[in-house]
């Protein structure tokens, strides 16, 4: 019997409840191949986030970005804005799980007096890069020697295959059905249909279409898998005290969590095969925020595949392990009538594959009351980040 303790752990984080808030958000267009570079996309997102906060570029004295992609760092910031001031920075921000923990880094820098206004930015241009056969989620993995020798040669590659294998095991262990995975895809598509920025804003999806779609890696079909996109977003974090002086309704950071799988990014070897490290990340974040699952008005989770949505909904405690299929099929994830309005912008599956940064933006929009598929009186919005070996949880509240 696998116990929680033997397959992962939570990071110990300082209590930052109420110290900082997100006060500015900026997004580029989300598109298929745009012909733009990630640095250009990042600059545009940064510009819009700073303007939304009512700040000038020189006010931004902190920057968090993705060290793994490093498309928009301090040098690119200064080059774009024509500035040269000192900036605190960290490469442990950006998207994916780190889109949820960047505000924690900002809180630390602000508390130490190293920065006042911290920008987190994440751009991606994989749709453009794919046409030249570079970049993309698979290439990062194929370079790891254990995967290159023990997985890729055996056809266990890339991500659609990993997650199809998890999806199959979830079906075998818990009786989850294709119709239930389809309910996730369809609900998210309906949310995207109400979200002006979504790549799939104008394309509807029915259960009949879902069930008739081509299999990529049976049991995973086309609609279980997210597209590749170009796009980016950014947000500005500052102290709650400073936030009160700015124009926007602050999205207050109430809780942050971070959990790790002991098997790293080797899904094939993870002891709790149908789980994510949200098991470790969520409890600390909810305890820091002083909330329970029932308090959550909107949940957004990193959802490259339908199965990743279902696993995180379970692992974050919104339903019992194995029960997420019936939960989704009951309509629980719908923005207008569900118990747990989920990925109300459409998620990676139907909004855009910009690796989670747009999920945090959606949380802020819901709290401001300006989302496309708006949940009435949204007070608590939670982002569940996921990067295979790591999960993060970010609890935001309105004021």
């Amino acid at each position, binding site marked *: 019997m696998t116990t929680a303790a033997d397959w992962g752990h939570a990071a110990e984080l300082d209590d930052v409840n109420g110290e900082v808030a997100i006060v500015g958000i900026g997004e580029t267009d989300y598109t298929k191949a745009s012909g733009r570079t990630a640095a250009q996309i990042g600059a545009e997102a940064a510009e819009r986030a700073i303007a939304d906060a009512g700040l000038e570029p020189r006010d931004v004295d902190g920057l968090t970005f993705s060290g793994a992609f490093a498309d928009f760092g301090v040098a690119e910031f200064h080059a774009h804005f024509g500035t040269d001031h000192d900036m605190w920075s960290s490469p442990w921000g950006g998207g994916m799980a780190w889109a949820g923990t960047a505000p924690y880094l900002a809180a630390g820098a602000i508390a130490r007096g190293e920065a006042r206004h911290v920008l987190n930015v994440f751009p991606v241009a994989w749709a453009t890069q794919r046409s030249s056969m570079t970049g993309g989620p698979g290439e990062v993995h194929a370079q790891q020697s254990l995967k290159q020798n023990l997985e890729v*040669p*055996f056809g266990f590659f890339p991500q659609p295959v990993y997650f199809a294998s998890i999806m199959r095991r979830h079906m075998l262990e818990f009786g989850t059905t294709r119709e239930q995975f389809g309910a996730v895809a369809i609900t998210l598509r309906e949310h995207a249909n109400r979200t002006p920025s979504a790549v799939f804003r104008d394309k509807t999806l029915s259960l009949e279409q879902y069930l008739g779609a081509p299999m990529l*890696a*049976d049991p995973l079909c086309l609609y279980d898998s997210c597209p590749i996109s170009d796009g980016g977003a950014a947000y500005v974090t500052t102290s709650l005290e400073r936030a009160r002086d700015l124009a926007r309704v602050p999205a207050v950071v109430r809780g942050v969590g971070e959990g790790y799988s002991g098997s790293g990014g080797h899904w094939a*070897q993870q002891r709790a095969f149908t789980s994510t490290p949200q098991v470790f990340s969520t409890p600390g974040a909810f305890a820091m925020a002083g909330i329970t699952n029932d308090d959550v008005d909107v949940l957004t989770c990193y959802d490259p595949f339908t199965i990743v949505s279902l696993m995180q909904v379970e692992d974050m405690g919104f339903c019992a392990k194995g029960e997420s299929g019936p939960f989704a099929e009951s309509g629980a994830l719908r923005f207008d009538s569900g118990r747990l309005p989920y990925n109300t912008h459409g998620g990676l599956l139907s909004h855009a594959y910009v690796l989670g940064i747009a999920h945090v933006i959606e949380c802020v929009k819901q709290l401001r009351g300006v989302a496309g598929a708006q949940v009435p009186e949204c007070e608590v919005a939670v982002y569940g980040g996921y990067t295979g070996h790591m999960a993060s949880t970010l609890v935001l509240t309105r004021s």
Partner: protein
Amino acid sequence: MAITRDDFPLPDVHDPLTAPFFAAAARDALEIPRCTACGTYVWYPAPTCPECGSGEIEWVAVSGRATLFTWVIVQRAFLPAFESMVPFVTALVALDEDPAVRLCTYLVDVADPAVLTANAPVHVEFRDLTFATVPGRSVRVPMFAVGAAS
């Protein structure tokens, strides 16, 4: 940085961490690294035992009997090398000696994937792995077939 090894996606049989796995397969043997100090199978291979920290690890023969943990019928060719192979069945099999050890493998001789069942007994079958994109090269590897024994 793209992968430049010209025999990709064949395994790199010279990679020190996994070379013994392929050396054993070349003799039609299935060997897995095990910690001599505490007896834990160290899978994936690692320089030190994740349980006890010992660096004394030896490759030991296992029976080749396993159970079918999960499988995927790959229909989209995600690499050019897979284009002439799809559809194929890739699987994770859990070794009888320690089900926590899961091998990524091909499930071979599957007449109808619809009849595959969870935790079905499977056994090792050594085959030469070739890809149309890597002409003239092959690596002997463990694949698995449904059934208790060969």
